[in-house]
Protein backbone atom coordinates (compact mmCIF):
# COMPACT_ATOMS: atom_id res chain seq x y z
CA UNK A 1 0.00 0.00 0.00
CA UNK A 2 2.75 2.44 0.95
CA UNK A 3 4.42 1.83 -2.38
CA UNK A 4 1.19 2.56 -4.19
CA UNK A 5 0.69 5.81 -2.28
CA UNK A 6 4.26 6.83 -2.93
CA UNK A 7 3.86 6.06 -6.61
CA UNK A 8 0.69 8.14 -6.82
CA UNK A 9 2.25 11.06 -4.98
CA UNK A 10 5.12 11.00 -7.42
CA UNK A 11 2.72 10.92 -10.37
CA UNK A 12 0.78 13.86 -8.94
CA UNK A 13 3.92 15.94 -8.66
CA UNK A 14 4.87 14.97 -12.19
CA UNK A 15 1.44 16.11 -13.40
CA UNK A 16 1.77 19.40 -11.52
CA UNK A 17 5.13 20.02 -13.19
CA UNK A 18 3.61 19.37 -16.60
CA UNK A 19 0.66 21.66 -15.85
CA UNK A 20 2.97 24.53 -14.98
CA UNK A 21 5.18 23.89 -17.99
CA UNK A 22 2.45 23.52 -20.57
CA UNK A 23 0.56 26.57 -19.35
CA UNK A 24 3.71 28.71 -19.33
CA UNK A 25 4.40 27.52 -22.87
CA UNK A 26 0.81 28.14 -24.00
CA UNK A 27 0.74 31.57 -22.36
CA UNK A 28 -2.86 31.17 -21.27
CA UNK A 29 -5.09 28.70 -19.44
CA UNK A 30 -6.25 27.78 -15.94
CA UNK A 31 -3.58 26.67 -13.45
CA UNK A 32 -5.53 27.15 -10.19
CA UNK A 33 -8.20 24.52 -10.69
CA UNK A 34 -5.86 22.22 -12.61
CA UNK A 35 -3.56 22.07 -9.59
CA UNK A 36 -6.44 21.68 -7.11
CA UNK A 37 -7.83 18.72 -9.07
CA UNK A 38 -4.47 17.04 -9.74
CA UNK A 39 -4.57 14.51 -6.91
CA UNK A 40 -8.15 13.50 -7.76
CA UNK A 41 -7.25 12.95 -11.42
CA UNK A 42 -4.06 11.12 -10.47
CA UNK A 43 -5.95 8.66 -8.26
CA UNK A 44 -8.55 8.03 -10.96
CA UNK A 45 -6.17 7.44 -13.86
CA UNK A 46 -3.39 5.63 -11.99
CA UNK A 47 -5.32 3.60 -9.42
CA UNK A 48 -9.10 3.69 -9.52
CA UNK A 49 -10.21 3.43 -13.13
CA UNK A 50 -10.17 0.40 -15.37
CA UNK A 51 -8.86 1.61 -18.71
CA UNK A 52 -6.50 0.72 -21.53
CA UNK A 53 -4.56 3.67 -22.97
CA UNK A 54 -3.51 1.53 -25.95
CA UNK A 55 -7.19 1.02 -26.78
CA UNK A 56 -9.04 4.19 -25.74
CA UNK A 57 -12.33 2.89 -27.19
CA UNK A 58 -12.28 -0.42 -25.28
CA UNK A 59 -15.99 -0.87 -24.65
CA UNK A 60 -15.72 -2.05 -21.03
CA UNK A 61 -13.56 0.84 -19.86
CA UNK A 62 -14.53 3.04 -16.94
CA UNK A 63 -15.39 6.52 -18.22
CA UNK A 64 -14.11 9.85 -17.00
CA UNK A 65 -15.78 13.14 -17.86
CA UNK A 66 -14.20 16.47 -17.00
CA UNK A 67 -17.23 18.66 -16.46
CA UNK A 68 -14.98 21.52 -15.35
CA UNK A 69 -13.37 21.50 -18.77
CA UNK A 70 -11.08 24.47 -18.17
CA UNK A 71 -8.94 22.28 -15.92
CA UNK A 72 -7.96 20.07 -18.85
CA UNK A 73 -4.20 20.64 -18.38
CA UNK A 74 -4.38 18.21 -15.44
CA UNK A 75 -6.27 15.72 -17.59
CA UNK A 76 -3.94 16.14 -20.56
CA UNK A 77 -0.90 15.58 -18.36
CA UNK A 78 -2.46 12.44 -16.87
CA UNK A 79 -3.47 11.10 -20.28
CA UNK A 80 0.01 11.63 -21.72
CA UNK A 81 1.67 9.97 -18.72
CA UNK A 82 -0.71 7.03 -19.12
CA UNK A 83 0.37 6.75 -22.74
CA UNK A 84 -2.76 7.92 -24.57
CA UNK A 85 -0.57 10.20 -26.71
CA UNK A 86 3.05 11.36 -26.85
CA UNK A 87 4.13 13.86 -24.22
CA UNK A 88 5.35 16.28 -26.88
CA UNK A 89 1.71 17.11 -27.69
CA UNK A 90 1.57 18.95 -24.36
CA UNK A 91 3.79 21.68 -25.77
CA UNK A 92 1.24 22.48 -28.50
CA UNK A 93 -1.59 23.11 -26.03
CA UNK A 94 -3.94 25.86 -27.27
CA UNK A 95 -2.04 26.31 -30.55
CA UNK A 96 -3.78 26.51 -33.91
CA UNK A 97 -4.54 23.01 -35.19
CA UNK A 98 -3.33 21.35 -31.97
CA UNK A 99 -4.73 18.06 -30.74
CA UNK A 100 -4.92 19.59 -27.27
CA UNK A 101 -7.57 22.29 -27.44
CA UNK A 102 -8.16 24.98 -24.83
CA UNK A 103 -11.03 22.86 -23.51
CA UNK A 104 -11.44 19.07 -23.81
CA UNK A 105 -12.21 17.82 -27.29
CA UNK A 106 -12.83 14.39 -28.77
CA UNK A 107 -9.85 14.72 -31.07
CA UNK A 108 -7.80 13.89 -27.98
CA UNK A 109 -7.53 10.14 -27.25
CA UNK A 110 -9.00 9.53 -23.80
CA UNK A 111 -11.51 12.37 -23.96
CA UNK A 112 -15.01 10.88 -24.12
CA UNK A 113 -17.07 14.02 -24.70
CA UNK A 114 -16.04 17.63 -25.27
CA UNK A 115 -16.69 20.02 -22.40
CA UNK A 116 -16.06 23.59 -21.44
CA UNK A 117 -19.46 25.18 -21.13
CA UNK A 118 -20.08 24.61 -17.43
CA UNK A 119 -22.94 22.74 -15.87
CA UNK A 120 -23.58 20.11 -18.52
CA UNK A 121 -21.06 17.47 -17.51
CA UNK A 122 -23.04 15.72 -14.81
CA UNK A 123 -25.87 15.26 -17.31
CA UNK A 124 -23.44 13.89 -19.89
CA UNK A 125 -22.08 11.47 -17.28
CA UNK A 126 -25.64 10.55 -16.33
CA UNK A 127 -26.31 9.69 -19.98
CA UNK A 128 -23.26 7.42 -19.96
CA UNK A 129 -24.46 5.82 -16.74
CA UNK A 130 -27.87 5.14 -18.29
CA UNK A 131 -26.14 3.55 -21.29
CA UNK A 132 -24.18 1.30 -18.92
CA UNK A 133 -27.40 0.25 -17.21
CA UNK A 134 -29.22 -0.38 -20.50
CA UNK A 135 -26.37 -2.63 -21.62
CA UNK A 136 -26.06 -4.24 -18.15
CA UNK A 137 -22.35 -3.42 -18.03
CA UNK A 138 -20.33 -3.03 -14.86
CA UNK A 139 -18.13 -0.13 -15.94
CA UNK A 140 -18.30 3.05 -13.89
CA UNK A 141 -18.45 6.76 -14.71
CA UNK A 142 -16.51 9.43 -12.89
CA UNK A 143 -17.47 13.06 -13.35
CA UNK A 144 -15.28 15.86 -12.01
CA UNK A 145 -17.08 19.11 -11.29
CA UNK A 146 -15.88 22.50 -10.14
CA UNK A 147 -17.37 24.18 -7.11
CA UNK A 148 -18.27 27.35 -8.98
CA UNK A 149 -19.67 25.17 -11.71
CA UNK A 150 -22.33 23.60 -9.52
CA UNK A 151 -24.01 26.98 -9.29
CA UNK A 152 -25.45 26.04 -12.70
CA UNK A 153 -29.06 24.83 -12.50
CA UNK A 154 -28.38 22.07 -15.01
CA UNK A 155 -26.20 20.30 -12.41
CA UNK A 156 -29.14 20.00 -10.04
CA UNK A 157 -31.43 18.70 -12.77
CA UNK A 158 -28.84 15.96 -13.27
CA UNK A 159 -28.47 15.42 -9.52
CA UNK A 160 -32.22 14.87 -9.18
CA UNK A 161 -32.33 12.49 -12.15
CA UNK A 162 -29.27 10.43 -11.17
CA UNK A 163 -30.88 9.58 -7.84
CA UNK A 164 -34.23 8.94 -9.53
CA UNK A 165 -32.62 6.48 -11.93
CA UNK A 166 -30.63 4.89 -9.03
CA UNK A 167 -27.35 5.28 -10.91
CA UNK A 168 -24.89 3.61 -8.56
CA UNK A 169 -22.42 3.37 -11.46
CA UNK A 170 -22.05 7.14 -11.37
CA UNK A 171 -19.58 8.87 -9.08
CA UNK A 172 -19.36 12.66 -9.01
CA UNK A 173 -16.44 14.54 -7.51
CA UNK A 174 -16.62 18.20 -6.51
CA UNK A 175 -13.26 19.95 -6.47
CA UNK A 176 -14.14 22.21 -3.55
CA UNK A 177 -11.38 24.81 -3.62
CA UNK A 178 -13.66 27.70 -2.66
CA UNK A 179 -12.65 29.96 -5.56
CA UNK A 180 -14.30 30.96 -8.79
CA UNK A 181 -13.19 33.57 -11.33
CA UNK A 182 -14.70 36.53 -9.53
CA UNK A 183 -13.62 35.57 -6.04
CA UNK A 184 -14.47 33.28 -3.12
CA UNK A 185 -17.53 31.07 -3.61
CA UNK A 186 -18.77 32.22 -0.19
CA UNK A 187 -18.90 35.77 -1.52
CA UNK A 188 -19.96 35.24 -5.14
CA UNK A 189 -22.62 32.56 -4.62
CA UNK A 190 -22.53 30.52 -1.46
CA UNK A 191 -22.72 26.73 -1.95
CA UNK A 192 -23.31 25.80 1.66
CA UNK A 193 -24.72 23.67 3.13
CA UNK A 194 -23.24 21.60 0.33
CA UNK A 195 -23.37 18.15 1.92
CA UNK A 196 -27.04 18.61 2.80
CA UNK A 197 -27.81 19.67 -0.75
CA UNK A 198 -26.43 16.50 -2.29
CA UNK A 199 -27.91 14.30 0.43
CA UNK A 200 -31.33 15.84 0.03
CA UNK A 201 -31.10 15.16 -3.70
CA UNK A 202 -30.67 11.48 -2.86
CA UNK A 203 -26.92 11.04 -3.21
CA UNK A 204 -24.49 9.24 -0.96
CA UNK A 205 -21.95 11.84 0.12
CA UNK A 206 -18.32 11.23 1.06
CA UNK A 207 -16.07 14.05 2.19
CA UNK A 208 -12.31 13.90 2.09
CA UNK A 209 -9.12 15.89 1.84
CA UNK A 210 -8.73 16.19 -1.91
CA UNK A 211 -4.96 16.21 -1.61
CA UNK A 212 -4.67 13.16 0.62
CA UNK A 213 -4.15 10.15 -1.62
CA UNK A 214 -5.16 7.62 1.05
CA UNK A 215 -8.39 9.46 1.79
CA UNK A 216 -9.21 9.83 -1.89
CA UNK A 217 -8.68 6.12 -2.56
CA UNK A 218 -10.88 5.23 0.40
CA UNK A 219 -13.57 7.60 -0.85
CA UNK A 220 -13.54 6.00 -4.31
CA UNK A 221 -13.71 2.53 -2.70
CA UNK A 222 -16.70 3.61 -0.64
CA UNK A 223 -18.42 4.99 -3.75
CA UNK A 224 -17.95 1.68 -5.51
CA UNK A 225 -19.59 -0.19 -2.65
CA UNK A 226 -22.73 1.97 -2.50
CA UNK A 227 -25.68 0.42 -4.31
CA UNK A 228 -28.88 1.90 -5.76
CA UNK A 229 -27.79 5.51 -5.47
CA UNK A 230 -25.09 7.71 -6.96
CA UNK A 231 -22.18 8.91 -4.84
CA UNK A 232 -20.57 12.33 -4.77
CA UNK A 233 -17.16 12.90 -3.26
CA UNK A 234 -16.76 16.38 -1.92
CA UNK A 235 -13.02 16.80 -2.14
CA UNK A 236 -11.77 19.67 0.00
CA UNK A 237 -8.95 21.19 -1.97
CA UNK A 238 -6.68 24.19 -2.25
CA UNK A 239 -6.78 26.26 -5.40
CA UNK A 240 -3.30 26.30 -6.94
CA UNK A 241 -2.16 23.44 -4.67
CA UNK A 242 1.59 22.74 -4.74
CA UNK A 243 2.83 26.15 -5.90
CA UNK A 244 3.02 28.52 -2.93
CA UNK A 245 2.35 31.75 -4.79
CA UNK A 246 -0.66 30.26 -6.59
CA UNK A 247 -2.33 28.75 -3.53
CA UNK A 248 -5.56 30.53 -2.61
CA UNK A 249 -4.83 33.23 -5.20
CA UNK A 250 -7.85 33.96 -7.37
CA UNK A 251 -5.72 35.59 -10.06
CA UNK A 252 -4.34 32.18 -10.99
CA UNK A 253 -7.79 30.83 -11.79
CA UNK A 254 -7.28 31.86 -15.38
CA UNK A 255 -3.79 33.27 -15.75
CA UNK A 256 -0.80 31.31 -16.98
CA UNK A 257 2.51 31.57 -15.13
CA UNK A 258 5.24 33.69 -16.70
CA UNK A 259 8.55 32.04 -17.59
CA UNK A 260 10.02 33.28 -14.34
CA UNK A 261 7.05 32.10 -12.27
CA UNK A 262 7.29 28.74 -14.00
CA UNK A 263 10.92 28.31 -12.89
CA UNK A 264 10.08 29.16 -9.30
CA UNK A 265 7.09 26.82 -9.38
CA UNK A 266 9.16 23.94 -10.76
CA UNK A 267 11.76 24.47 -8.03
CA UNK A 268 9.05 24.31 -5.38
CA UNK A 269 7.65 21.12 -6.87
CA UNK A 270 11.16 19.59 -6.83
CA UNK A 271 11.37 20.48 -3.14
CA UNK A 272 8.05 18.81 -2.44
CA UNK A 273 9.24 15.68 -4.15
CA UNK A 274 12.51 15.66 -2.18
CA UNK A 275 10.63 16.01 1.11
CA UNK A 276 8.34 13.14 0.15
CA UNK A 277 11.34 10.97 -0.72
CA UNK A 278 13.01 11.69 2.62
CA UNK A 279 9.78 10.82 4.40
CA UNK A 280 9.78 7.51 2.58
CA UNK A 281 13.30 6.67 3.75
CA UNK A 282 12.62 7.32 7.43
Amino acid at each position, binding site marked *: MDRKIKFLKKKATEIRRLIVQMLAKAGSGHPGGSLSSTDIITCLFFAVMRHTPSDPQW*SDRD*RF*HLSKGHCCPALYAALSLCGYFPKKELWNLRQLGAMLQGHPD*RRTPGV*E*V*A*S*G*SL*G*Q*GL*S*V*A*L*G*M*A*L*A*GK*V*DKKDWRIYCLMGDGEIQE*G*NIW*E*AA*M*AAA*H*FKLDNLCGVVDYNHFQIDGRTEEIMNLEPLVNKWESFGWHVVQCDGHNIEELLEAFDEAKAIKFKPTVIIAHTVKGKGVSFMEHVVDFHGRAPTAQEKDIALKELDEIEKIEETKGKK
Partner: protein
Amino acid sequence: MESLYARDIYGKTLIELGKKDLRVVVLDADLSGSTRTALFGREYPDRFFNFGVAEQNMMAAAAGLASCGKIVFASTFAMFATARVMDQVRNSICYNNFNVKIVASHAGITVGEDGSSHQALEDINLLRAIPQLRIIVPCDAWETRDAIFAAYETEGPFYIRMGRAKIPTIEQKKKFKVGKGYVIEEGEDLAIIACGIMMNESLEANKLLKKEGVSATVVNMHTIKPIDEDLIVDIAKKHKKIMVCEEHQVIGGLYSAVCEVLARKCPTLIERVGIEDSFGQSGSPKELMDFYGLSSSGIAKKAQKFIRQHS
Protein backbone atom coordinates in the same frame (compact mmCIF):
# COMPACT_ATOMS: atom_id res chain seq x y z
CA MET B 1 -58.08 13.74 -48.12
CA GLU B 2 -56.20 11.83 -45.42
CA SER B 3 -55.21 13.92 -42.44
CA LEU B 4 -52.91 12.59 -39.71
CA TYR B 5 -50.98 13.64 -36.65
CA ALA B 6 -47.29 13.53 -37.62
CA ARG B 7 -46.52 12.70 -34.00
CA ASP B 8 -48.70 9.57 -34.13
CA ILE B 9 -46.59 8.33 -37.00
CA TYR B 10 -43.44 9.40 -35.16
CA GLY B 11 -44.37 7.26 -32.14
CA LYS B 12 -45.12 4.27 -34.32
CA THR B 13 -41.91 4.72 -36.30
CA LEU B 14 -39.92 4.75 -33.07
CA ILE B 15 -41.35 1.35 -32.17
CA GLU B 16 -40.27 -0.01 -35.57
CA LEU B 17 -36.76 1.32 -35.05
CA GLY B 18 -36.66 0.07 -31.47
CA LYS B 19 -37.57 -3.39 -32.63
CA LYS B 20 -34.90 -3.61 -35.30
CA ASP B 21 -32.08 -1.89 -33.41
CA LEU B 22 -31.26 -2.26 -29.72
CA ARG B 23 -29.11 0.87 -29.88
CA VAL B 24 -32.21 3.05 -30.20
CA VAL B 25 -33.13 4.85 -26.98
CA VAL B 26 -35.82 7.49 -26.55
CA LEU B 27 -35.91 10.44 -24.15
CA ASP B 28 -38.67 12.83 -23.27
CA ALA B 29 -39.24 15.63 -20.78
CA ASP B 30 -42.72 15.11 -19.36
CA LEU B 31 -44.48 15.50 -22.71
CA SER B 32 -44.34 11.89 -23.85
CA GLY B 33 -48.11 11.70 -24.26
CA SER B 34 -48.13 14.71 -26.55
CA THR B 35 -44.98 13.87 -28.52
CA ARG B 36 -46.09 10.20 -28.66
CA THR B 37 -42.74 8.89 -27.41
CA ALA B 38 -44.87 7.19 -24.75
CA LEU B 39 -45.79 4.63 -27.43
CA PHE B 40 -42.13 3.59 -27.52
CA GLY B 41 -41.94 3.76 -23.74
CA ARG B 42 -44.75 1.25 -23.34
CA GLU B 43 -43.10 -1.14 -25.80
CA TYR B 44 -39.49 -0.75 -24.61
CA PRO B 45 -39.53 0.62 -21.05
CA ASP B 46 -35.86 -0.27 -20.52
CA ARG B 47 -34.82 2.02 -23.36
CA PHE B 48 -37.13 4.91 -22.59
CA PHE B 49 -36.24 7.65 -20.11
CA ASN B 50 -38.55 10.38 -18.95
CA PHE B 51 -36.50 13.28 -17.60
CA GLY B 52 -39.36 15.21 -16.08
CA VAL B 53 -39.51 18.94 -16.71
CA ALA B 54 -35.75 19.23 -17.21
CA GLU B 55 -34.84 19.69 -20.85
CA GLN B 56 -31.26 20.81 -20.31
CA ASN B 57 -30.53 17.60 -18.45
CA MET B 58 -32.25 15.56 -21.16
CA MET B 59 -30.20 17.07 -24.00
CA ALA B 60 -26.82 16.77 -22.29
CA ALA B 61 -27.68 13.23 -21.16
CA ALA B 62 -28.58 12.46 -24.78
CA ALA B 63 -25.00 13.37 -25.63
CA GLY B 64 -23.70 11.03 -22.92
CA LEU B 65 -25.85 8.17 -24.18
CA ALA B 66 -24.71 8.79 -27.76
CA SER B 67 -21.07 8.77 -26.63
CA CYS B 68 -21.67 5.17 -25.57
CA GLY B 69 -22.97 4.13 -28.99
CA LYS B 70 -26.69 4.74 -28.55
CA ILE B 71 -28.87 6.26 -31.25
CA VAL B 72 -30.84 8.76 -29.24
CA PHE B 73 -34.22 10.27 -30.07
CA ALA B 74 -34.99 13.19 -27.74
CA SER B 75 -38.39 14.81 -27.87
CA THR B 76 -40.30 17.67 -26.34
CA PHE B 77 -42.12 20.74 -27.68
CA ALA B 78 -40.13 22.79 -30.19
CA MET B 79 -39.99 25.72 -27.79
CA PHE B 80 -38.20 23.65 -25.14
CA ALA B 81 -36.13 21.58 -27.58
CA THR B 82 -34.37 24.66 -28.93
CA ALA B 83 -34.45 28.01 -27.14
CA ARG B 84 -34.23 26.49 -23.69
CA VAL B 85 -31.36 24.13 -24.48
CA MET B 86 -29.25 25.94 -27.07
CA ASP B 87 -26.01 25.53 -25.15
CA GLN B 88 -26.54 21.82 -24.53
CA VAL B 89 -27.50 21.25 -28.16
CA ARG B 90 -24.55 23.22 -29.47
CA ASN B 91 -21.78 22.14 -27.14
CA SER B 92 -22.75 18.69 -25.88
CA ILE B 93 -24.55 17.32 -28.96
CA CYS B 94 -23.51 19.10 -32.16
CA TYR B 95 -19.87 19.91 -31.40
CA ASN B 96 -19.31 16.23 -30.65
CA ASN B 97 -21.27 15.32 -33.81
CA PHE B 98 -23.26 12.83 -31.76
CA ASN B 99 -26.05 10.60 -32.97
CA VAL B 100 -28.80 12.57 -31.28
CA LYS B 101 -32.02 13.12 -33.17
CA ILE B 102 -34.05 15.94 -31.69
CA VAL B 103 -37.62 15.44 -32.80
CA ALA B 104 -39.77 18.33 -31.64
CA SER B 105 -43.51 18.64 -31.78
CA HIS B 106 -45.85 21.62 -31.32
CA ALA B 107 -43.81 23.95 -33.52
CA GLY B 108 -45.25 27.07 -35.09
CA ILE B 109 -48.32 29.22 -34.79
CA THR B 110 -50.71 26.27 -35.16
CA VAL B 111 -50.06 25.29 -31.56
CA GLY B 112 -53.10 27.53 -31.31
CA GLU B 113 -54.90 28.30 -28.07
CA ASP B 114 -51.87 27.89 -25.77
CA GLY B 115 -50.62 31.16 -27.20
CA SER B 116 -47.29 32.85 -27.68
CA SER B 117 -45.25 31.15 -24.94
CA HIS B 118 -45.73 27.80 -26.68
CA GLN B 119 -45.55 28.88 -30.30
CA ALA B 120 -41.97 28.18 -31.40
CA LEU B 121 -41.43 30.57 -34.30
CA GLU B 122 -37.69 31.05 -33.95
CA ASP B 123 -36.49 27.46 -33.55
CA ILE B 124 -35.06 27.08 -37.04
CA ASN B 125 -33.35 30.43 -36.82
CA LEU B 126 -31.75 29.45 -33.52
CA LEU B 127 -30.45 26.12 -34.74
CA ARG B 128 -29.51 26.96 -38.30
CA ALA B 129 -26.19 28.54 -37.39
CA ILE B 130 -24.94 25.43 -35.59
CA PRO B 131 -22.47 23.40 -37.69
CA GLN B 132 -23.02 19.67 -38.27
CA LEU B 133 -26.73 19.83 -37.44
CA ARG B 134 -29.25 18.86 -40.12
CA ILE B 135 -32.69 20.47 -40.00
CA ILE B 136 -35.78 18.89 -41.53
CA VAL B 137 -39.34 20.21 -41.63
CA PRO B 138 -41.49 17.40 -43.09
CA CYS B 139 -44.62 18.34 -45.03
CA ASP B 140 -46.85 15.55 -43.71
CA ALA B 141 -46.97 12.52 -41.44
CA TRP B 142 -45.46 10.16 -44.01
CA GLU B 143 -42.60 12.46 -44.83
CA THR B 144 -42.04 12.66 -41.07
CA ARG B 145 -41.63 8.90 -41.11
CA ASP B 146 -39.13 9.15 -43.98
CA ALA B 147 -37.22 11.84 -42.13
CA ILE B 148 -37.08 9.76 -38.94
CA PHE B 149 -35.69 6.81 -40.88
CA ALA B 150 -33.16 9.03 -42.69
CA ALA B 151 -32.05 10.51 -39.38
CA TYR B 152 -31.70 7.03 -37.92
CA GLU B 153 -29.57 5.91 -40.86
CA THR B 154 -27.41 9.04 -41.05
CA GLU B 155 -24.57 9.59 -38.59
CA GLY B 156 -24.77 12.85 -36.63
CA PRO B 157 -27.29 15.22 -35.06
CA PHE B 158 -30.69 16.09 -36.55
CA TYR B 159 -33.54 18.45 -35.74
CA ILE B 160 -36.91 17.32 -37.06
CA ARG B 161 -39.82 19.72 -36.66
CA MET B 162 -43.44 18.60 -36.24
CA GLY B 163 -46.60 20.50 -35.50
CA ARG B 164 -49.39 19.83 -33.06
CA ALA B 165 -52.34 19.71 -35.42
CA LYS B 166 -53.38 17.04 -37.90
CA ILE B 167 -51.74 17.56 -41.25
CA PRO B 168 -53.17 16.64 -44.68
CA THR B 169 -51.22 14.01 -46.55
CA ILE B 170 -49.60 15.37 -49.70
CA GLU B 171 -50.35 12.93 -52.52
CA GLN B 172 -47.72 14.09 -55.01
CA LYS B 173 -44.67 13.51 -52.81
CA LYS B 174 -41.47 12.17 -54.33
CA LYS B 175 -38.76 10.03 -52.80
CA PHE B 176 -37.33 11.62 -49.67
CA LYS B 177 -33.64 12.38 -49.54
CA VAL B 178 -31.97 14.55 -46.91
CA GLY B 179 -30.77 17.81 -48.45
CA LYS B 180 -32.67 17.33 -51.71
CA GLY B 181 -35.83 19.32 -52.34
CA TYR B 182 -38.02 18.71 -55.36
CA VAL B 183 -40.63 20.27 -57.61
CA ILE B 184 -44.06 19.02 -56.66
CA GLU B 185 -46.06 21.02 -59.22
CA GLU B 186 -44.94 22.83 -62.36
CA GLY B 187 -46.28 26.32 -63.11
CA GLU B 188 -45.53 29.48 -65.08
CA ASP B 189 -45.64 32.75 -63.23
CA LEU B 190 -43.61 32.26 -60.09
CA ALA B 191 -42.10 29.58 -57.89
CA ILE B 192 -43.25 28.91 -54.35
CA ILE B 193 -40.75 27.23 -52.07
CA ALA B 194 -42.31 25.86 -48.90
CA CYS B 195 -41.86 23.38 -46.07
CA GLY B 196 -43.93 21.76 -43.33
CA ILE B 197 -47.62 22.56 -43.17
CA MET B 198 -47.04 25.39 -45.64
CA MET B 199 -46.61 22.77 -48.34
CA ASN B 200 -50.30 21.95 -48.34
CA GLU B 201 -51.26 25.63 -48.00
CA SER B 202 -49.07 26.44 -51.01
CA LEU B 203 -50.62 23.70 -53.12
CA GLU B 204 -54.08 24.96 -52.15
CA ALA B 205 -52.98 28.50 -52.98
CA ASN B 206 -51.88 27.30 -56.39
CA LYS B 207 -55.39 26.01 -57.03
CA LEU B 208 -56.74 29.50 -56.24
CA LEU B 209 -54.12 31.09 -58.49
CA LYS B 210 -55.01 28.79 -61.37
CA LYS B 211 -58.63 29.94 -61.13
CA GLU B 212 -57.30 33.46 -61.66
CA GLY B 213 -55.31 32.37 -64.68
CA VAL B 214 -51.84 32.27 -63.14
CA SER B 215 -49.85 29.32 -61.84
CA ALA B 216 -46.88 28.56 -59.63
CA THR B 217 -44.18 25.98 -59.59
CA VAL B 218 -44.35 24.57 -56.07
CA VAL B 219 -41.23 23.20 -54.41
CA ASN B 220 -41.02 20.97 -51.35
CA MET B 221 -37.93 22.14 -49.46
CA HIS B 222 -38.16 19.76 -46.50
CA THR B 223 -34.50 20.08 -45.60
CA ILE B 224 -33.59 23.55 -44.35
CA LYS B 225 -30.01 22.53 -43.65
CA PRO B 226 -28.11 21.59 -45.69
CA ILE B 227 -30.19 23.65 -48.10
CA ASP B 228 -30.48 22.42 -51.69
CA GLU B 229 -28.54 25.21 -53.40
CA ASP B 230 -28.61 23.68 -56.86
CA LEU B 231 -32.38 23.35 -56.90
CA ILE B 232 -32.90 26.91 -55.64
CA VAL B 233 -30.63 28.36 -58.33
CA ASP B 234 -32.26 26.18 -60.96
CA ILE B 235 -35.75 27.33 -59.95
CA ALA B 236 -34.67 30.97 -59.78
CA LYS B 237 -33.25 30.86 -63.29
CA LYS B 238 -36.47 29.40 -64.66
CA HIS B 239 -38.94 31.61 -62.83
CA LYS B 240 -37.36 34.97 -62.02
CA LYS B 241 -39.80 35.35 -59.12
CA ILE B 242 -39.67 33.31 -55.93
CA MET B 243 -41.94 33.27 -52.93
CA VAL B 244 -40.98 31.39 -49.78
CA CYS B 245 -43.68 30.17 -47.38
CA GLU B 246 -42.98 28.97 -43.86
CA GLU B 247 -44.66 28.74 -40.46
CA HIS B 248 -41.77 30.56 -38.78
CA GLN B 249 -40.39 34.06 -38.36
CA VAL B 250 -39.28 35.57 -41.67
CA ILE B 251 -35.95 36.09 -39.94
CA GLY B 252 -33.59 33.14 -40.00
CA GLY B 253 -35.72 30.33 -41.39
CA LEU B 254 -36.31 28.92 -44.86
CA TYR B 255 -36.82 32.37 -46.39
CA SER B 256 -33.44 33.50 -45.06
CA ALA B 257 -31.79 30.29 -46.24
CA VAL B 258 -33.16 30.80 -49.77
CA CYS B 259 -32.15 34.49 -49.77
CA GLU B 260 -28.64 33.56 -48.73
CA VAL B 261 -28.28 31.22 -51.67
CA LEU B 262 -29.80 33.60 -54.21
CA ALA B 263 -27.95 36.71 -53.04
CA ARG B 264 -24.67 34.95 -53.70
CA LYS B 265 -25.44 32.76 -56.69
CA CYS B 266 -28.43 34.17 -58.57
CA PRO B 267 -29.98 37.44 -57.36
CA THR B 268 -33.72 37.10 -57.91
CA LEU B 269 -36.92 38.94 -56.95
CA ILE B 270 -38.18 37.33 -53.78
CA GLU B 271 -41.24 37.58 -51.55
CA ARG B 272 -42.14 35.77 -48.34
CA VAL B 273 -45.03 34.46 -46.33
CA GLY B 274 -44.24 33.90 -42.68
CA ILE B 275 -44.55 35.53 -39.29
CA GLU B 276 -43.48 39.13 -39.80
CA ASP B 277 -41.23 39.64 -36.78
CA SER B 278 -43.97 39.44 -34.18
CA PHE B 279 -45.06 37.11 -31.40
CA GLY B 280 -48.10 34.91 -31.77
CA GLN B 281 -51.23 34.81 -29.62
CA SER B 282 -54.11 32.54 -28.63
CA GLY B 283 -56.64 31.45 -31.19
CA SER B 284 -57.66 28.40 -33.14
CA PRO B 285 -55.03 27.19 -35.61
CA LYS B 286 -57.28 28.16 -38.52
CA GLU B 287 -57.91 31.65 -37.15
CA LEU B 288 -54.20 32.19 -36.55
CA MET B 289 -53.22 30.98 -40.01
CA ASP B 290 -55.69 33.44 -41.50
CA PHE B 291 -54.76 36.30 -39.17
CA TYR B 292 -51.04 36.04 -39.94
CA GLY B 293 -51.62 35.55 -43.66
CA LEU B 294 -50.27 31.99 -43.71
CA SER B 295 -53.33 30.22 -45.11
CA SER B 296 -53.79 29.42 -48.78
CA SER B 297 -55.87 32.55 -49.44
CA GLY B 298 -53.19 34.73 -47.85
CA ILE B 299 -50.50 33.07 -49.94
CA ALA B 300 -52.53 33.45 -53.15
CA LYS B 301 -53.25 37.12 -52.45
CA LYS B 302 -49.60 37.89 -51.81
CA ALA B 303 -48.54 35.92 -54.88
CA GLN B 304 -50.96 37.85 -57.11
CA LYS B 305 -49.64 41.17 -55.82
CA PHE B 306 -46.05 40.01 -56.26
CA ILE B 307 -46.68 38.96 -59.86
CA ARG B 308 -48.54 42.23 -60.69
CA GLN B 309 -45.87 44.45 -59.13
CA HIS B 310 -43.12 42.94 -61.23
CA SER B 311 -44.79 42.09 -64.52
